[in-house]
């Protein structure tokens, strides 16, 4: 099974932010979308998740996908703690299980705090854990390790590798290093407006 985008294009105010985007992702694969900021990575992710409509082209194979996103803005419920935030989307997991998993990324005392008192990095880690523990089968991470210091970044990446399982992972990043550690195929992004067709870059490890 594979997921494809066919000649996908999106414009805002008469200007294309990308056009003729052809992606081909294998189920269970790990892919890193690498492009400078403002090239429409977030928009592409929103289109994949069905939060926005493409202006051109179509999506193939995404209809039945259940996404597990990490959004750039974390999007946690601020009044609740990290455990409750995860239980919201995965009520069948016990509090104990979630606590055990979260302790790999967050300090013990933070689990009794509301997320509003978290630092940016802690929120990011909670959002990452939410995606990993969710029932989604397509992990879609928008710069998931942004704002983490070196040590937690490594821990977080290890965790992603460990928890990914057979799921597909597509993440956006600015750092080739992250793609290398996660063993991801690097996908470039067309600079708008362009007619270039893109394939996963096979030369990357």
């Amino acid at each position, binding site marked *: 099974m594979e997921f494809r985008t066919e000649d996908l294009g999106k414009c805002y105010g008469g200007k294309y932010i990308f056009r003729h985007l052809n992606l081909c992702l294998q189920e269970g694969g790990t892919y890193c979308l690498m492009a400078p900021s403002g090239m429409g990575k977030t928009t592409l992710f929103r289109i994949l998740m069905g939060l926005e409509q493409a202006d051109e082209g179509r999506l193939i194979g995404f209809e039945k996908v259940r996404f597990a996103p990490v959004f750039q803005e974390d999007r946690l*419920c601020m*009044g*609740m703690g990290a455990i*409750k935030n995860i239980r*919201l989307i995965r*009520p069948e997991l016990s509090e104990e299980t979630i606590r055990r998993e979260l302790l790999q990324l967050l300090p013990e005392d933070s689990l009794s705090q509301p997320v509003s008192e978290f630092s940016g990095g802690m929120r990011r880690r909670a959002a990452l854990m939410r995606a990993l523990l969710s029932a989604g089968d397509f992990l879609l991470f928008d710069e998931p390790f942004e704002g983490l210091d070196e040590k937690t970044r490594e821990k977080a990446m290890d965790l992603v590798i460990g928890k990914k399982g057979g799921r597909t992972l597509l993440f956006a990043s600015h750092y080739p290093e992250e793609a290398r550690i996660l063993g991801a195929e690097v996908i470039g992004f067309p600079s708008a407006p362009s007619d270039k067709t893109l394939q996963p870059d096979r030369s990357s490890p």
Partner: protein
Amino acid sequence: MGRKKADGLKGRRIKKAAILLFWLCLWQGISLWVDRPIFLVGPCETLAAIFRLAGTGPFWHAVFSSLTRIGFGFALAFCIGLICGSAAYFRPFFGELLSPVVTLMKTIPVASFVILALIWAGADNLSLIISFLVVFPIIYLNTVAGLKSTDRQLLEMSQVYRMKSLARALHIYRPALAPYLVSACQVALGMSWKSGIAAEVIGTPQYSIGENLYMAKVFFTTDELFAWTAVIIALSFLFEKAVLILIKEAAREKI
């Protein structure tokens, strides 16, 4: 540090009490100077009148029936306002349909409502109806505004993660709604109480605070007028505190 803070708090309290005492003394002084209890009674006479009234059955009967009617009207308006507001948010046509009615309710003078309600429903449940009519538009409009303020990003998140509707309602819509409902209640509580009593003065239903105020006017028992006014203020204050505690508790997110 902590000690200093506590001292500061104590100091401020003493200052507040002194200010209050100053005005009470001034009031007492003026009432002694005027020396005509029909025009003005002092705080001591008012207090005496409160105690005199509080020893009688009809006093408690009036307090109880006014409080329950206004309170029930408020509760009813709160629930129906919340339901209609949510319906108007999720089904915009319903909102458009309701919009002229709500505008009318907001702009018609309370006095006209009172007369109409008297004609249609009689005096008995007058304050209930008036309290409802005053509170409903406030709760309704604030429910719509609160729901509109819901974080779009969280809604998208809940959609992609396929969150259950109940969880979405409780943890994404409710936190957005809460501050709007709290401020709506702060306004509505005082208004329901004031307009409810005003309606009772006009309609003079039996055993009501409004009837007692009216009687105080008829018999020139100014001390009782002052006493009832003090009672209304106290009841309104307690009512407001109690309702706000309930609402804030219902809105609080457990960590």
